[in-house]
């Protein structure tokens, strides 16, 4: 029978219990033949979410696959000094409007969070759901300097810098970007070159890949001889990716497989990549937990300097050591420990009063583990 896809749920088959069962069975058989269990890293927080929400993790464990979360949460890897700089600015400067994504306002730092901050007179902190909304705030608030504190990976970067281009075309001179723009492939390389974690292969993020394409991960296979697969976000998508990785190991032929072809083209999104190349340049950026990674961040090119918040406002981005608060988020992001290895998990650190960003963000491994794992309390 030909499968039907309804317009309401075009992905019903990707969630069907039967499809999932068959894929798990295939993975279990093929992993058994390899003779040893595998440890795979899913980079993207949205994959972590699917794995937990669909209850796949214990089944995969039984099939010989341990899934480890990686650094794929932009809120989590943005270091505290970005938040602290913007907190200083909004508490000391008048008529400043900071626009940022919701999760960013709840990240705890030693200066508090943006949510607990009391802005100076005439200043404000506003949550936006899309970069365009930040731009709209600049159009509506002519009396204020509007700073968009935009954090994101390759999926979000094009839409974030699009706002700067639009602001320039519309002569919105009081619009500024505090760019927290991070690149996934250099982070993977940092994790691999550190040699700290043993990983047998990768599940690459689907929507980052929709922008950057397949080639961006080629070094993982060529230089580190590790397999990987780009996967979508339905349970069956992730299982297809895992099946591909297992088969690559069996054949001894690591490569970059694309198991999300309905969305990811080999060349990515040329329009988005062209916009990034036009406006941004790479620099050695600091990541929470991972330290300074060569060419892992993007910033506006000098010709867009008028829109760069750190160049035009009293906002100093100085990397500094974060005081130890007992939070192990940095190690969680590298796959060195799991959320439950943190003594604060579910005790001092819960979603209502998070002690680290991994318990704040919807893509954070600690929040996901807390929300979706049975008996969120630490065992």
């Amino acid at each position, binding site marked *: 029978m030909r499968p039907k896809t309804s317009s309401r749920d075009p992905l019903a088959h990707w969630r069907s219990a039967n499809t999932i069962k*068959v*894929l798990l069975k295939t993975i279990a058989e093929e992993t058994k033949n390899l003779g040893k269990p595998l440890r795979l890293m899913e980079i993207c927080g949205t994959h972590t979410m699917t794995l937990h929400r669909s209850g796949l993790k214990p089944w995969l464990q039984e099939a010989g696959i341990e899934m480890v979360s990686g650094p794929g949460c932009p809120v989590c890897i943005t270091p505290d000094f970005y938040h602290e700089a913007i907190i200083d600015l909004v508490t000391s400067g008048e008529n400043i409007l900071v626009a940022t994504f919701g999760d960013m306002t709840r990240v705890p730092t030693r200066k508090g969070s943006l949510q607990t901050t009391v802005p100076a007179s005439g200043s404000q902190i506003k949550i936006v*759901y899309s970069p365009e*909304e930040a731009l709209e705030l600049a159009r509506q608030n002519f009396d204020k300097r509007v700073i968009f504190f935009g954090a994101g990976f390759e999926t979000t970067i094009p*839409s974030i810098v699009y706002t700067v281009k639009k602001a320039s075309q519309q002569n919105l001179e009081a619009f500024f970007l505090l760019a927290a723009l991070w690149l996934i492939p250099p982070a993977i390389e940092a994790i691999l070159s550190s040699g700290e974690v043993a990983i047998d292969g990768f599940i690459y993020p689907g929507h980052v890949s929709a922008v950057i394409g397949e080639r961006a991960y080629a070094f993982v296979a060529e230089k580190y001889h590790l397999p990987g697969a780009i996967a979508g976000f339905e349970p069956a998508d992730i299982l297809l990716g895992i099946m591909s990785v297992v088969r690559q190991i069996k054949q001894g032929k690591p490569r970059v497989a694309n198991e999300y*072809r309905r969305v*990811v083209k080999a060349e990515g*999104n040329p329009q988005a990549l062209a916009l990034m190349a036009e406006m941004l340049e790479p620099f050695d950026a600091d990541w929470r937990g991972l330290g300074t990674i060569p060419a892992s961040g993007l910033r506006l090119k000098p010709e867009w300097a008028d829109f760069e918040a750190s160049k035009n406002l009293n906002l100093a981005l100085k990397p500094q050591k974060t005081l130890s608060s007992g939070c192990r988020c940095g190690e969680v992001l590298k796959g060195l420990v799991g959320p439950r290895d943190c003594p604060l998990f579910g005790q001092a650190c819960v979603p209502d009063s998070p002690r680290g960003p991994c318990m704040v963000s919807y893509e954070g491994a600690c929040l996901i583990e807390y929300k979706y794992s049975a008996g969120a309390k630490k065992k």
Partner: protein
Amino acid sequence: MCLAVPGKVISLEKDGVGQVDYMGTTIVANFSLLPGIKTGDWVIIHAGFAISKLDRKEARKTLKLFQELEKLNPSE
């Protein structure tokens, strides 16, 4: 922030903006990063921007693969 499910384009207006039927809800999306989109196309939206067009042929290929796997492993 990451909407993993595709939506169907229902209208395209000026300035690269359009409306998308997202599981029964109409949302406004920006199409500036995805030229050549037509109404009726399925797209992935991220942070208010369409970033990728769904390739239905590829989706059907994956469905076929599922069916083949299921044929090899008939349910008990």
